[in-house]
Every structure is written in C-alpha cells, then in structure tokens.
C-alpha cells in the first residue's frame, strides 16, 4: 500500500532529521538530567550506607544531606551515646564541603573523622596506598577522585586556607571522597569540639530498631535514621527534586511540541499543493489529519529512539569526562521520556494537521 507519511519522511531528509534531533534532545535531556539527579542522590546515599554503620544520629532539624550540616552537636555527646543500650560504637563526624579542588570548580564533600572510632562503626577507611590519618594536616583521598584529578600520595592540596598533605588513597564507595582529622576540620571551620553527626554501630545483643527506640527515648527530638532507609529519606527530603524533574519533563515536552509544530507547519505550507491533490482525489479532513499525525508520530518515535541512544552515549561521555558524577538511566524514565516526547510532538502536530484539513482544495491546487 502507498505509505505517504513514510515517503515524505524519507524524501524530506533535512526536515525529518531536524524533527528527530529535536525530539531526541528533549528525551535525552530528561533521561540524562533525571539520571544525574537520581544518580547523585543514590550514589551519595550508597556511599553513606557503605560506611557500614547502623544509625546516623543528628541534632534536631538536621538534613539527611550530610554536607549541609554544620557542627551542631558536641563531640562529648559520644560518651553518652555509648551508654544507650544497644549502641556499641559511636564515631563523631564533622562534615565540610569544597567548591573547588586543584583549581577546578567542583563540589566535594569532606568528612572530618576520628579514624579510630570511624573504623569501629563500620567498614572503616580502607587504605589502598599510603597510610591513614596520623598527623595534623593529613588528608586521605578516595581512588575515584585521585584518578579524576591526578592526585597522588605526597601531593599538597590547599584546602580551607590551609595546606594538607595527601597521605593515603582509600578505596572509593564508603563515606565521602576526602577525609581529614576531625580536629583539623574543627579548626578549619572554627567549630572546636563540634560534630555534625555520629555514626553508630549497634551491638550483637540488640537490633537496630531496639537501639533506635532507646536513642529516641533518651534523646528526645534528635534525628535518628537507620542507614537501611537512608536512601529513601534523602529522596524524600531532597528539596525541589520533584519540582526539578517536573520542570525538566515539561521542558522536554515543550521542545518536542514546538519543534514538531514548526516542522509540520512548514511542511504543510510546503505541501499545500500535495494536500490539494489529495483533497481533489476525495480525501476527507480526517484522512488529511491522520496523514499529518502519522508522519509526526513516526518522527517522534524515531526521535525517542535517537534520544535513548544519545542518552546512553551521553552517560558514557559524562562518566568518561566527569568520573566523580553518577548517571542512573532509570528504566521507568525511558518510558516517561518516550511518552513526553511523543505526546509533545503529537500535540505540536495537531494545529498543522487541522490547518491542512481545512485547506480549500481549489486554493491548494493553485498554490505555487
């Protein structure tokens, strides 16, 4: 059977390519940016979980985003935490963040830790090269950051107006990418004796739930989060994440809508005479509308497929050039972005289709 939409798609290569690329761009934008947002959150949550502790203990009103908490609890609280039934170890951590490293702009989270207690609450800092934190101004960097920025043991890094020496490279995936002594962090941030949180280890004689209940009873109002549910807690508290994703989705749909609208509108103008011929042959308004919509649908579908390919390639490129970032291409969002791209495109085709259907056949046939 004659397939006019397909014939038009293959005969109008520039128009088709532009349409496909525009839809693909919208789809890829959604997939990659949502993937980046989710990936960063998940990766951060995973690293915190991989510390190996059972509970995070924070001051009332603290955020699950550990990097934004200042030193609001006293380090001496650790001794009282150890008195709570079920709590076997408590490691104070003072969090900090860098906005640039080795002259490059990047956001990096730092833990100021007491390495001995930190190693007691979980898997600890697993040194793969060099040594642990022993002296003031010692610094440990994880393997990913070291590889990304070419950091080696012995390098001196100016951090928070002070020169630190990289004394060890640790295995990535647990906690943060940079560790320093908690005293150094307290000094650097002018918060002596303070911590942002405690990682707690629950002893074999108790469950996490029991220990958490005991902590809640003893420290009313304090925030006690089991690491099991930390990822979900982060996402729930990720201010603006839902709005960000909604805005992205709308953006993608609007791009598809506008580009298909423009592409199909131009096509209809170009093909006025062709539409006149079809009308002269007896094509109904619905036939013409269907023709335009099918053509747009095919362009959108090809755009969505191209968008998927660009997303996968884009993810690889991001991971190659920015190894500290994480992009999770979420299967559910493949479906969502496809729906957005196609529905945006079809909406954009509606007006040109309607205009084409309304063309006067005599005028259309005389169109030059």
């Amino acid at each position: 059977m004659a397939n006019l939409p397909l014939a038009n798609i293959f005969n109008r290569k520039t128009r088709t390519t532009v349409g496909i690329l525009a839809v693909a761009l919208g789809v890829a934008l959604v997939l990659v940016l949502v993937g980046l947002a989710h990936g960063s959150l998940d990766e951060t949550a995973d690293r915190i979980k991989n510390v190996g502790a059972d509970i995070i203990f924070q001051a009332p009103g603290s955020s699950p985003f550990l990097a934004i908490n200042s030193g609001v609890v006293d380090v001496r609280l650790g001794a009282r935490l150890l008195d709570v039934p079920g709590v076997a170890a408590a490691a104070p951590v003072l969090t900090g963040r860098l906005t640039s490293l080795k002259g490059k702009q990047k956001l990096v989270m730092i833990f100021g830790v007491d390495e001995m207690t930190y190693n007691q609450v979980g898997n600890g800092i697993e040194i793969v090269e060099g040594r642990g934190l022993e002296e003031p101004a010692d610094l440990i960097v994880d393997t990913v950051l070291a590889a990304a920025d070419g950091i080696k043991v012995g390098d001196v890094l100016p951090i928070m107006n002070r020169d630190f020496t990289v004394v060890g490279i640790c295995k990535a995936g647990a906690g943060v990418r940079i560790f320093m002594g908690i005293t150094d962090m307290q000094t650097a941030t002018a918060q002596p004796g303070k911590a942002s949180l405690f990682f707690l280890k629950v002893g074999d004689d108790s469950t996490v739930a029991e220990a958490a209940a005991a902590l809640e009873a003893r420290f009313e109002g304090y925030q006690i989060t089991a690491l099991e549910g930390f990822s979900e807690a982060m996402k729930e508290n990720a201010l603006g994440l839902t709005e960000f994703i909604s805005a992205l989705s709308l953006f993608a749909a609007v791009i598809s809508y506008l580009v298909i609208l423009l592409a199909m509108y131009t096509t209809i103008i170009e093909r006025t005479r062709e539409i006149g011929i079809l009308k002269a042959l007896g094509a109904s308004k619905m036939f013409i509308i269907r023709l335009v919509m099918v053509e747009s649908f095919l362009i959108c579908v090809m755009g969505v497929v191209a968008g998927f390919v660009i997303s996968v390639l884009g993810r690889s490129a991001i991971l190659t050039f920015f190894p500290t970032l994480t992009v999770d291409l979420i299967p559910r969002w493949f479906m969502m972005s496809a729906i957005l791209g196609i529905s945006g495109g079809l909406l954009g085709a509606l007006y040109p289709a309607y205009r084409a259907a309304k063309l006067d056949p005599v005028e259309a046939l005389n169109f030059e």
Partner: protein
Amino acid sequence: MSQRRAVLKTIALRKVYRTGSLDVPALQGIDMEIKAGEFVSIMGPSGCGKTTLLQILGGLSAPTSGQVFIDGVDLASVSDAVRTRMRCLKIGFVFQRFNLLSTLTVQANIEIARQIYGGEPVTRDEVGDLLEIVHLRHKLDYKPLELSVGEQQRVAIARALVNKPAMILADEPTGNLDSRNSEQVLRLLSDLNREKQQTIVMITHNPEAAEMGNRVIEMLDGQIRSHGTVAELVEEPERARSQAR
C-alpha cells in the same frame, strides 16, 4: 443516447466571486445535462468560466446558487464532507498539471486514490492492468519526475480510473503537452469513452482537442453560448446558439 441516465445535471448554476466590495460573476445560470457514456468538451476562451464550472461539477467548490446533480445527488445542497465523499466515489480528475504526488512511485500514486476511496486495497496486478490501458505497465516503480510529461499525464488518467468513477473531469489535459503527447492523451480519452463507455467531461480551449468529444459546449462570459457536435457548431452556429438559449 437520450435513453441513457443523466450522470450530471446543472440547473441555473451561478457562481459569484467577491473581490473586496466587488462581485465578479463567473457563472451566470448554467443549465446542462451530461448522460452516461458521453464525451463532452467544454470550450471557451480564457476567463469564460469553464474552470470554475469544472470545479463546481467536481465538488471542489460550491456554487453561489443553483443546483448540480451528480448521479442524482445535489452537490450544492450537501455538506462539505458529503461533497468530498461524492468526489471520491463518483469523479476522477485529470488536471492540466498532472498533479501526481512526487514522493510516491507510479504504483503508489494509483494506490493512494484507492486508499482514499476505502475498501479493498488495489493489488499490484490491478495497478499493472490500469497502467496497461495507458501503455505504462513497465513504469510501475518509477517516480513521477522520472517520467516524461506525457507519461505523467497518462499515469494521472490511470489514477482517475482506479475507483471506476461515474465521470472523468479533465481540465485542459493537453495544456502542458506537446502535440505528439497531446494526441496520445486525447486518443486515450477517446478510446476510454468508446471502448469502456467512460463518461468524460473535458475542458479545453483547443478546438482540435474539443473535436474528440461527441458533444461540445461552448462557453462565453459565464454562460453557455452554444452546444452540439463540432460539425453542428461549425456548420449551423446559429441553430446551436438558439438550442443553448
């Protein structure tokens, strides 16, 4: 001839175009009847209203007043959708500029007319048979721009035939052709009329082309000036004119 049913009949057909505040009459009361199996040529100088008449007869536009019956259905009183459907079911168009779809092959150009018509898709063999009539079976897979202008017009004739229309409306079908191709196309139309009793209404300003029809309607200033056979028009013009009145 007189016992045949009327495929087309117009009564007091008028068409007025409005240009700004000016009314320009294109048709001023056309009464005519075309019976099944007739080959009628409509002749006249440019601007006499013959193309407007063809557009109305083909349901491409509506008259300002009057009636136009195609197989008993008054196109002037039906909705645009019904007029479009009637065009699809009853009429096959052949245009001066061929009006083939350039992105489709010859076969697909014919198929799409059946697609619009609905029902069973036309097979490749059936398309081949239609192209055989116009001697182009071997050009099934060509695109229009790969054909000569004469061949394009013959494909347009094959397309017009695909849905077995009650009537073919041909608007200056030889207007863009050289004399050799014109002759071929006119002979083809004549053969279709003679051998398949296909009703044909052809607009032309060329008296030689008009001679192919078995009746000629001569138009002037939006009215029928005369009608009859070519011989009658030449030999007894006054009589032909009085018949028209």
